[in-house]
């Protein structure tokens, strides 16, 4: 059956940050130079062709955007200035919006006003919530957060939010997996998935594919942000009240939000310092990079790229300030900063994780894992054939 062409798809992609891919004349230099493009999954040229022809279904089934870590070699070597690297980036934005069944992501990506409004609404809601709902008699002599917002209560909120977010992200990831597997969905035995599950973990933790790119600094920066974020995420979600308090599991000594100051060698404090440093280093590097626009991957910034970096950095900065006001034992500034901290962190989590840039933490390793599964399955089939 013949493919139908939609000439206006490229126009739709502009909202997702597509810039110059119209100029592509399909010489294939980008694919040739890409350190990650492989025989069965070639990119970026092929994807540009799909986009130019308006083949949305083909794009939806393509794992390739997730196989790209955007080192920028393709854009640097494009003889026509078609910026294939940025094209792949816009493909990831587009796919994120397509995976999201709620339609929220598409709005978030395609409308700046919606993006700002969504962040503002969540922030104000959290601000009001924390201002009006707190413990009856906060400690105004010492900076004791638990006296205002007891950790177990916060953790309950945390859990509720976490569950909703996880459901959203997982459902979107499920759709991602289903699209990417295409005809093979449901055909490959579970054993093959299990056999390759390790890939998922490895790619998630190490992003080893990124290390194949020419510019290894990008990999390092990416790894810093990811590990810093993941660490602090674990501390907040898992150990805010010392474990899962709601079901009675709670260890006093493992509480993340506690009013005593832990000794310097306490693992939570060390991990906190690491995360703070890693995130601040990574986000500052990226923000400066995006301002200077010297590195190819930083040349074009979509509104959501800035939102992501700014929210992440603000969350970390307010976290640092809280740490100091607690050390200085200033109660009021600590409480105010805590509210601000939450007003930044919560929108970031609620909006970015299932609907925007953060979602790639799930899509990318899953796509890589599924490619491995496919490859393994094909090998099996060949052996039997």
């Amino acid at each position: 059956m013949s493919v139908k062409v939609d000439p206006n798809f490229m126009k739709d992609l502009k909202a997702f940050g597509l810039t110059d891919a119209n100029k592509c004349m399909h010489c294939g230099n980008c694919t040739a130079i890409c350190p990650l493009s492989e025989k069965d999954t070639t990119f970026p040229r092929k994807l540009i062709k799909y986009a130019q022809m308006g083949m949305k279904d083909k794009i939806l089934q393509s794992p390739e955007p997730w196989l790209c870590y955007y080192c920028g070699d393709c854009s640097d070597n494009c003889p026509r200035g078609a910026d294939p690297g940025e094209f792949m980036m816009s493909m990831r934005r587009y796919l994120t919006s397509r995976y999201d069944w709620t339609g929220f992501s598409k709005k978030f990506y395609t409308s700046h006003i919606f993006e700002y409004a969504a962040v503002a609404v969540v922030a104000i809601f959290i601000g009001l919530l924390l201002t009006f709902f707190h413990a009856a008699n906060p400690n105004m002599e010492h900076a004791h957060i638990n006296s205002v917002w007891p950790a177990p209560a916060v953790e309950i909120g945390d859990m509720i939010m976490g569950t909703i977010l996880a459901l959203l992200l997982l459902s979107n990831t499920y759709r991602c997996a289903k699209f990417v597997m295409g005809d093979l969905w449901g055909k490959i035995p579970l054993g093959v998935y299990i056999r390759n599950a390790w890939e998922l973990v490895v790619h998630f933790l190490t992003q080893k594919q990124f290390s194949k790119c020419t510019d290894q600094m990008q990999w390092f920066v990416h790894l810093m942000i990811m590990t810093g974020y993941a660490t602090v995420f674990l501390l907040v979600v898992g150990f805010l009240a010392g474990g899962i308090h709601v079901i009675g599991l709670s260890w006093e000594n493992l509480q993340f939000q506690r009013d005593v100051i832990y000794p310097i060698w306490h693992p939570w404090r060390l991990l906190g310092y690491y995360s703070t440093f890693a995130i601040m280093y990574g986000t500052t590097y990226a923000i400066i990079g995006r301002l200077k626009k010297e590195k190819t991957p930083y040349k074009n910034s979509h509104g959501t790229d800035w939102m992501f970096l700014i929210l992440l950095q603000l969350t970390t900065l307010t976290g640092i300030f809280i740490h100091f006001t607690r050390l200085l034992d200033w109660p009021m500034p600590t409480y105010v900063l805590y509210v601000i901290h939450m007003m930044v962190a919560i929108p970031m989590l609620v909006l970015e994780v299932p609907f925007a840039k953060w979602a790639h933490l799930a899509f990318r390793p899953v796509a890589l894992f599924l490619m491995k599964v496919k490859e393994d399955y094909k090998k099996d089939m060949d052996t039997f054939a």
Partner: protein
Amino acid sequence: MEKKSAVYICTGCGIGDALDIDQLSQIATDEFSVPICKKHANLCSKEGVELIKKDMADEGINTIAIAACSPRVMYDTFDFEGCIVDRVNLREQVVWCQKENDEDTQLMAEDYLRMGITKINGMELPEGYKPEEEFSRDILVVGGGLTGLNAALEGAKAGYSMVLVEKENELGGFQRNVKEIAVSPFKEVTANDLPALIREVTENEKITVYTGSTMESVSGGPGIFKAKVKKSDGIAEHKVGAVVLAAGWKPYNPEKLDAKLGYGQSPDVITNAMFEESSVEGKIARPSDNKDVENIAFLQCAGSRDPKHLPYCSSVCCTASLKQAIRVKQQNPDAGVYIIYKEIRTPGQSEDLYRAAQELGIVFIRCQDPEVKVDGGLAVEADDELLGERVLIDNLDMVVLATGMVTVSAFGRDITKEQQAESDDEEDLDVPLDVIRRSNLLNLEYRQGPELPALNNDFPDSHFICFPYESRRTGIYPAGTIRRPMGIGTATEDAAGAVMKAIQCIELTSKGAAVHPRAGDMTFPHFEMKRCTQCKRCTVECPFGAINEDEKANPLPQPTRCRRCGVCMGACPERIISFKNYSVPIIGDVIKSINIPEEDEEKPRILVLACENDAYPALDMAGLHRMKYNAWVRVVPLRCLGSMNLVWIADSMSKGVDGVFLLGCKHGDDYQCHFIKGSELSEIRLSKVSETLDRLALESERVRFEAVSIVDYDKLPAMLDEFAESIEEIGPNPFKGW
């Protein structure tokens, strides 16, 4: 003119170190009794030249042989007015390519000096040809399209009176149908300013314009063309000096296209030319119902680059389709515009247009073999090579087929076939005839046919790399799309280039000199008519149609059309054609002056007849690179290998020369001969030489033809050595010492 000869030997550039100059001088003084033979360490210096000039003034010297470097260098230094000069190439072709102070090297130099002195003894000072008729400096431009208009204007601006003849009732040609154009560097589609150009031409006092007129006939030659213009109300006659032929092109006939392209099956399948015509009014609309275009596909290479139709690329269809596509997008930015192409060919700055079209969101589909569907709505199916899948573009309002350009000289009967039918009874020399079609453009009253001969695909071009604007008819310069497919920018430049050539031709001819490629040559062929046998070889073989014929088949040379290649001289079996400084006897004597050593000396001699345009400079370059080659060779440069007369081979063989090596240019479709057919003719003649050799009871391997180009200089030494070896194997010529 009484000759007073002198020989000057330069000892610079290593000549003096490699040769015994005193011994060499004795050839001049003792053997040829030349009164003055001087040597100088640096003959091209001011002092050296002064030495020669002093002898000319004091001793009345008027005939000199300069034994120094190659005639291809220092030619302006050794240019003495009113003096016969020949150059003996001791540097590039003796001392730089042979062993120093070797007996064979010395013998070679001595032979070359003998040949040089023999040549100056035979040469005479040329006097340029002055036609009897009144000489005209006016220029005729045939075709009033973009190229013709520009040509007329350029010529008028240069101060020449121009005659512009257009067959339609209005000037402008195809461009009248073009409303908007894309110019480089491309910013946006701009209005075609043709009316301004037409106004400039019609208001120019130096341009006489005939519209609704064609050429009744053109006769004569450069400087003395007689042009008859057929008007609606009679004939106008003009004497002109040169002609620019800018008769243009026609779109390839879409009726001939493959049925799968859908032409004729739906009114909405049109050609690019029809698109231009239909959109002159402004709106781009569907032909069947005048509805605004929402979806349109352009199919490139409709019948182009296709051996069944036009085998060539017309070079402008891609640019034109891009422009048309951009216009559709300008009219309706939401229109679906598709360009289906084999390869996008946007030469030079047209690439900007391609990029602009891409940025507007025009969809490009690469497919070698698209198919237009007309049943149930217009659609195009194409195998997209860059996608690897079959693509369907439906709901189309229009399909535009980009057909190519056909030169107007491609229409009309080919006279070659008529001639072949006629020439049954004549002695056949297998000379391939030129393709000349009765295309009713010039109607030349030439013995060789009424129009310009075609080179490839009916384009009346000459060698397109070396000689743009040249045709094979002197003084007639094709320009614009009649010459090759081109766009507006190139055609405008082409017009200026062709007029420039026409002006050169007029100015040189007025001085009695030859035009390109022997520009400035004052000689012209003289026919000793008393001995003519009316064999027609000269008229048939002249590559430039410079010889007419009377009813008794006597040749009527038209010297202003002549390019002085000497092909007629080589063709004439009676040897009645000669130039003042180049003739069968002069070169024959030069060959005979080569000293042939006795058989027991084991010094064979090889005569190399080398084309002076490619082979001779290639030999110079071999010397320049200090490449050594066989010392038995003696090189005689020829104006063109086509001027080689078979008698020279017979003469040299009967004198005892062991082998003859002919070095000519590549011929065939991509010929490199400056005179188009020279080397081909000489090879054909050579095929007849075996009779001569048989008569002398000699081996035919003693004579060989080889095609070389100037870049083959590095292969030449090996070629010569190998030929020398084969001659050694055959053994000495038994005629030695007779």
